[in-house]
């Protein structure tokens, strides 16, 4: 039987970043096909090409042996490809039935024929075996039930293929198991399922076929029966080294502890997080997206409230309830999303650089423009920020230079602790190397650095010590020699670590 969907040499880039490169893969008419890969390997982009969110830059998308172009998810839906997104997109106030039938209600001249709608709904309920109550409000349902509604909605629209991006990420173990059972039933009923997941055991238990991606490329597609969690991890990591890292400066073992964190707990996001960073040390924090890495930095910086936990700075307990207090204690945070959390994009380089320390440039509330300009120019040249002038709006700078502006903001008054969350995200290779050198140099000057990155290479390449997080907990710690891609990845994905 010909495949339902096929990709031929598909590529897609975003502003110079190659998200998917020369991907060729075909999806059968029935059964469950898994896609696995590291953060940023291109899984989501690939699935969004299939579901019509993105158009490929190159290559062909073939459905039923016919090359097609999807301009929107609507086009994909018209050919029977439905998507269930990471964030549930239902109308919470409406009932299950209303959500399932939204936009496809049986009607006569716009008047809904309720009886007919109910009859169709019952048929769907029968077919999927979900046994959902049609009159229940969706907002009152649990996440797993809401996902059933989403799935039923897709089937009501005659979906032949359902794309699921991380459907179990927000679920408890129990709920995940139930959802996987539903996915199996769907496949048994003749619907093709494309499942993207971080959980390798999950993928291996339900999928017939698994595709592994790395750096936007497809490494291989093979029957799940031929794979083990370890073989998948090996394929995801690969052996290529794409970047060189500045040599690590040795950290004196007796250097004083600058930051000590004990028992940091926040809801279900952070569970009893404890660690310490010494002067001059770069501590790497690895883990999958959503494992709680960012939440650690935000909790230490006082950006989010915590339920429990203690923080000591140079041996003294401190209470940090706001970023303002943290900054006053000499803690700086480079947030993961520079556009939304880091910079005031429409304001100038100068205004952004001095924002956190404006008091240093003013007397009696009046800003001293000359001193401010001089300091901004000095930092701009030290960090090699390429900008037409210090008065240019930050939005006109390239990603790498924007990131350097963010660094400059916290280097006006060098902090004792630097929490760097994804410091090289969306930055070109040249700027990346400069930022790596900068981090190493800052640590060498005695700063305690917490480095969070989705790029495992970066964490391993720069950090003196690596902590691995999974589901809100620190699950492993490796020193510089022990930290290998395999080990860290295995800990992050919870496969059996090769000791």
């Amino acid at each position, binding site marked *: 039987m010909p495949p339902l969907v096929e990709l031929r040499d598909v590529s897609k880039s975003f502003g110079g970043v190659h998200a998917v490169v020369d991907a060729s893969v075909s999806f059968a008419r029935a059964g469950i096909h898994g896609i696995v890969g590291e953060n940023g390997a291109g899984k989501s982009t690939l699935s969004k090409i299939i579901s019509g969110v993105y158009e490929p830059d190159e290559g062909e998308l073939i459905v039923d042996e016919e090359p097609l172009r999807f301009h929107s998810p609507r086009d994909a839906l018209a050919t029977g490809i439905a998507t269930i997104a990471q964030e549930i997109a239902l109308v919470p106030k409406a009932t299950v039935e209303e959500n399932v039938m939204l936009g496809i209600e049986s009607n006569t001249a716009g008047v809904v024929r309720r009886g007919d709608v109910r009859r169709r709904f019952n048929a769907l309920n029968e077919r999927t075996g979900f046994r959902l109550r049609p009159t229940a409000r969706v907002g009152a349902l649990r996440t797993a039930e809401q996902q059933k509604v989403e799935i039923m909605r897709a089937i009501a629209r005659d979906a032949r293929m359902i794309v699921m991006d991380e459907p179990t990420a927000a679920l408890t173990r129990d709920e995940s198991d139930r959802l996987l059972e539903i996915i199996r039933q769907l496949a048994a009923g003749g619907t093709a399922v494309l499942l993207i997941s971080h959980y390798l055991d999950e993928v291996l238990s339900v999928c017939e076929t698994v595709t592994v991606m790395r750096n936007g490329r497809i490494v291989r597609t093979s029957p799940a029966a031929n794979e083990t969690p370890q073989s998948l991890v090996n394929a995801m990591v690969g052996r290529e080294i794409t970047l060189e890292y500045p040599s690590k400066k040795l950290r004196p073992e007796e250097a004083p502890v600058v930051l000590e964190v004990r028992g940091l707990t926040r809801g279900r996001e952070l569970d009893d997080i404890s660690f310490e960073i010494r002067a001059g040390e770069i501590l790497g924090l690895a883990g999958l997206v959503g494992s709680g890495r960012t939440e650690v930095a935000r909790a230490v*910086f006082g*950006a989010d409230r915590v339920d429990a936990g203690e923080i000591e700075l140079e041996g003294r307990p401190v209470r940090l309830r*706001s*970023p*303002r207090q*943290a*900054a*006053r204690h000499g803690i700086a*945070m480079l*947030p993961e999303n520079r556009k*939304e*959390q*880091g*910079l*005031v*994009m*429409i*304001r100038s380089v100068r*205004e952004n650089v001095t*924002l*956190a320390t*404006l*008091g240093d440039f*003013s007397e009696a*509330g*009046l*800003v001293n423009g000359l001193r401010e300009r001089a300091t901004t120019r000095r930092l701009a040249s030290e960090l090699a920020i*390429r900008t037409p002038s210090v008065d240019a*709006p930050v*939005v*006109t700078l390239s990603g790498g230079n924007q990131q350097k502006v963010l660094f400059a*903001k916290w280097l006006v008054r060098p902090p004792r602790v630097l929490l760097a969350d994804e410091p090289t995200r969306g930055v070109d290779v040249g700027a990346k190397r400069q930022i790596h050198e900068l981090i190493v140099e800052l640590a060498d000057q005695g700063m305690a650095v917490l480095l969070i990155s989705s790029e495992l290479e970066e964490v391993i390449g720069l950090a003196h010590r690596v902590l691995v997080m999974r589901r809100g907990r620190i699950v492993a710690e490796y020193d510089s020699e022990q930290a290998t891609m395999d080990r860290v990845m295995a800990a992050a994905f919870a496969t059996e670590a090769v000791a």
Partner: protein
Amino acid sequence: MSAEPVAAQQPPWMRVVRSVNLRDYGIVVAFLALFIGLTFSTNTFFTQNNFANILDQWAALGLLAIGETICIIAGVFDLSTGAMVSVTAVVACKVALSVSPTMGLVAGVATGLGLGIANGIVIHLTRINSFIGTLAMAIVYAGVAILITGGNIVTVTDSSFGAIGQDMGLGIKYTGWTFIAFTVFAALLLARTTFGRYVYAVGGNAEASRLSGIRVDVIRGACFALSGLAAGLAGMLLASRTQSAQANLGAGMELTAISAAVVGGTSILGGDGAVWRGFLGIMLLAIIGNGFNLLNINTTYQQIVYGGLILIAVAADQLLRRRA
């Protein structure tokens, strides 16, 4: 960089023209065009008497427009300014009657400041959107004004109460001077002080500002306080000018003030704009109204022109932002 050689080939004036974009100075061009047009098409426009009159008539709205400009730059709206004008004017008259005319004037301004601070606190505590928050406060204030007056006009007969609203110095009425002084004060505050810098930062990106150690609610609260102060001054001037006040005195003024801020080129998305823009915005509305009068055009058309101007200003802002 490949862009540099191209720029170097252009004559210097070209570069200056390019750096001055339409968005920045559209309001200036519009204002000057109308100003020059009216100067030549009438012989009553370009007279000291006319200018003094315009300033006097638009002083109260001008004060509100400056307050709104500050709020909009900080990323919030203040829909309560009109109602605050009513309350402050009524309070000024009542205190003038029961204590003394001078104390009445002072009480009016102080009341405005107090109500503005109350806006800031309420919005901080309830965490509701400023648009809805100040709308609700406006309804409360309007009710308070009716409570104080009992629905009647409050009249102050002591002529010393009317001095600031009616007398003149150096060819301009004190109302105009108050407006100009507040404009200069606000302009310096925004352009030169750390507070001003924070206003722009908070409006441009509240989360980034918070993560830079800025107390976002304190800054926005201070902006509401300034807007309240402006409303207090406006209410005091209006009360003094007619030596009377009633509960609906300021009703609807906030909409004209917000229009002026927006027409002046202050972005409703926050983080961008200037006090002089608010000033020029209200002056543009003023001379349009003045022009209709002097040219004997049916003033009904004025509304249509005002509405059209707001649409043009906001559309231009969004278009140019998207392109940037």
